């Protein structure tokens, strides 16, 4: 019996004092990169800044990084440099770096590499993005669609090439007639609960990331997408932008949704985002887009 007691006490002591330490880290500053290449448009501006402590007030103006050397390189199909584009810091907006050559247009299905070095830091930043195929709406869009009617707005995209396992789309509506009276019922109810009514955040309203697998391929290879009613915040004239986004942009946005909650993670479990940036955090992504216009009219 005495031996049993001794053994138990020894085990208990080992457990208590031999437990692993798993202490919280201290705040660490990271370099933040933000840039979005758009097919058919000029090379993207690159925003450079640092993070700030979470318990401090944040603004880009207090955290931008100056004196960085920014290069964007067009890669060939072997991954070798084909053309290098130099950047310079904007004199009016510190921390924002603009391509010196503005006439070059970003090409769909091509890969671009971002490299950043600093005069006063040892950090090296790099990232690559492959621009999705150009989105092309090929069907005739009706002038108007009755909200939540049986006739949903249909968008047919020309068969896109794939740069990853599947294309990832986002629908973005931009209201041309934003007004409280024009809000659809769901968004009106959100506004009604707020103390300070501000409709501006719903003027540009998005569906979130939607996988290509949600939609049916047509016999000719084109893709039929039905625009979800939840994307309509305002009645009246709207631009409907269909975006095809790359993996970098998809990763950072879907992981940001998880960080804000609503996934299978337990409450209080907050992960970092999926960045795809070497040497820093942020996003160097790309997308292509096509825009149509229609009017969402009130139901009868």
């Amino acid at each position, binding site marked *: 019996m005495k031996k*049993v007691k001794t053994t138990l006490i020894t*085990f*208990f002591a080992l*457990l208590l004092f031999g437990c692993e330490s*798993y*202490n*919280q*880290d*201290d*705040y660490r500053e*990271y370099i*933040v990169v*933000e*840039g*979005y290449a758009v097919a058919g448009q000029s090379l993207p501006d690159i*925003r450079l800044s*640092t*993070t*700030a402590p*979470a*318990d401090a*007030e944040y603004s*880009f103006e207090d*955290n931008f990084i100056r004196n960085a050397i920014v290069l964007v390189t067009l890669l060939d199909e072997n991954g070798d440099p084909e053309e290098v584009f130099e950047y310079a810091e904007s004199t009016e907006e510190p921390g924002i770096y603009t391509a010196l050559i503005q006439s070059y247009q970003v090409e769909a299905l091509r890969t671009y590499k971002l490299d950043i070095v600093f005069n006063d830091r040892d950090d090296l930043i790099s990232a690559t993005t492959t621009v999705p195929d150009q989105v092309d709406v090929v069907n005739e869009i009706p002038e108007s669609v009755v909200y*939540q009617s049986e006739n949903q707005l249909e968008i047919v995209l020309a068969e896109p090439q794939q740069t990853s*396992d599947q294309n990832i789309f986002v629908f*973005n509506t931009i209201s041309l007639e934003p007004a409280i009276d024009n809000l659809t019922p*769901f968004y009106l109810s959100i506004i009604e609960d707020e103390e300070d009514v501000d409709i501006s*955040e719903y003027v*540009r*309203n*998005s569906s*979130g990331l*939607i*996988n*290509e*697998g*949600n939609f049916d391929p047509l016999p000719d290879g084109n893709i039929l997408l*039905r625009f*979800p*009613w939840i994307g*309509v915040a305002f009645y009246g004239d709207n631009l409907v*932008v269909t*975006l095809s986004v790359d993996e970098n942009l998809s*990763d950072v946005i*879907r*992981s940001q949704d998880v960080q804000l909650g609503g*996934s*299978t*993670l*337990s*409450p*209080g*479990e*907050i*992960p*970092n985002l*999926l960045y795809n940036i070497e*040497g*820093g955090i942020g996003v160097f992504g790309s997308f292509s887009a096509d825009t149509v216009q229609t009017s969402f009219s009130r139901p009868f």
Partner: protein
Amino acid sequence: MIKTLSLFIILIGLVYQPVYSQDGASVNGYITDSQTGETLLSANVALLEINRGTSTNTSGYYSITDITPGTYTLVATYIGYQRYELEITLEEGENLRQNIELIPQGVELEEVVVESQAEREAQRNIGRAEVSTELIKEVPAIIEPDVFRSIQLLPGVKAASDFSSGLYIRGGGPDQTLILLDETTVYNPTHFFGFFSTFNPDAVKDVRLYKGGYPAEFGGRLGSVLTVFNKDGNRNETTGSVSLGLLASRVSVEGPYSRGSWMLAVRRSTLEPVLAVLRQSVDSVPDLFYFYDINGKLNFDATADDRFSIAFYTGNDNVSLPFQEDATIKLNYGNQTVSTKWRRIISEELFSSVTATGSRYFNQPGFEIGGTPFESNNKIYDFSLKGDLEYLPNEKNTISTGIWTGILTLSYADQFDDQPTFSNRIQSTYLSAYVQNEWRPNSQWIINGGLRLNTFAEGNFYRFEPRLSIENRSFSNVRLQAAYGRYYQYLTLITNEAFSGFDIWLTSDNGVPPSYGDQFVAGVKTIPFEGYGLDVELYYRTMRDLFEFDPFVNDAAGLDYSELFRYGEGYAYGLEVFFEKQTGRYTGFIGYTYGITKRKFPGFNDEILDEPLSGRFYPPKYDRTHDVNFVSTYKLSERWSVSAVFNFASGQPYTKPLGRTQFSGVPWGSSERDIFTVGKLNASRLPSYHRLDISFSRKGTFFKLGDAEWQFQVINAYSRRNIWFYNYDFEENPVERQDVQLLPVIPSVSYTVNF
């Protein structure tokens, strides 16, 4: 398939083979409650003079074989019943069928029970705990007495929060515990968003929990097994009870008929009148909100050796909640189970049971927001056939063997905007077979070795699971125990700790191998003083090839099945101490757990600039290092009693945001996006948790028609505002932290009538 049929033919053949008894005599039979006729599981029975004993199996049947002819004192005991003694005389080769009826004890003050060593074959096998139905109804409960919340009081079992009845056992999540109702698997045993379990305390007869190191007769889960047996029904008279509560009400009836007994218990929520009133003045009150469950059983005694039973359960939760204009959330989920069982006493040495089971789980959550519906449909169908044999060839060996085979169908489908977006259906046959032997070479050693084979056709998986447990009784009143087992699991659960209304089960398949783990357990169980028990257990478990739904998968459409998951590993270890007083006016227990559990998934909890495929071990939210439960009941008088439960636990882990930045150019949406950087996941700790619940009960009569009981409870008596989690308002600059608190003080009252 051919192998399965062959095994069954052998099993059925054994049923009809006459087995010739040896020269030694034997005594066997059923042990029942003298008032209700309910069989008593794990009741102790022994022959005093030769210190040989055993306990009843899950059918309430016992057998002692290979007895030298002579005269003996047959003794039977069971907690809550009077001691039974009978002098028996056995002739050479005699097989005595001796059924025993135990008389329930009245209120005892300071009784000391004299027992033989063999009688204290209390079923405290390693890693096992039993919860009495009296405890379930006595302890203060949040609105409703609940089986799972009572189990959460045991050492090694943790609760995620006040809102959850989920069982987190020895570092494992709820999906690592196999839950059986009358030997049928229950896939979502919760009501009311996981607030409490589907087990109706009025219908339950026996609850036993294998916290770890469970024997070869069970399998399919990495961690634990919870077996719940419903009552068979009163075999002597028709009785019933009615209980009215704030959230739900219960009615149960049971009784005999010429060839057996029956039982029916119904529970339903009774919130509709309250909701109707609230709806007139409060927004976001559910349009529809109810739950119910029905338990039933019918027993048929064909012969003295053959008993049949059929048991069923059906339950459903249905909610429709408009949370905004033009936005509704709907939940509809439930379980149905049915099992039919044939128990046969083949001989004094051989007992068999054959069970056919069916289980259905469905879960259909959905949202409709701004005219856009999101729907999900998860179904499980599990039909199985199970056969078990228990063979006592001699006094030193008890051999158990069995097979369990079935067809498991899981289907999971998503719809977005009325269009199917993801659909997966897996139908797999499974076969498990086990053999184990409990060998007692002498009075000091018990060695239980077993081997289990699990097969899962989808993915063509075959896995062997060895099991071993050893017990030594060299010291008086002290049992030293150790156990080892390998366990495999083919299922994983997508769940949210906040509530279980969206639980979805997924299974192994090609490219998704089953998870597995090893468990090592060592323990000491002792009776330090008469009427007291002290158990100490250490455990260590590994978890490998864990597969969980990847939280970063925002849209399953177009993904291969294996891409839905993240794959990782984990481990857990700890120490449990359980000290209880079992007899007298004052009874209760103290349970303490020191437990550590960690997980690791590549690509998750990395250092930000590290290679993304590494990952670090982190504690999941339910990891509480220290957990103490103090449960006590004191009988003030014949009518009045008071119960109290005090729980103290270390704070749960949480993740503290360390840094922030902002994206301003995301090409859709309007506002800037706030981004946060964190260090180690779950490296900070919430404040400690503690809560006191008190219950007073008064027994009386209901207009002389039956016994009645009032129960007055106060949950969280001193209104400790424990923290569930911190909510960071990322829209504020700097970020603001808000405490999301658990339950405040809650008084409740219930009234129960037994007729």
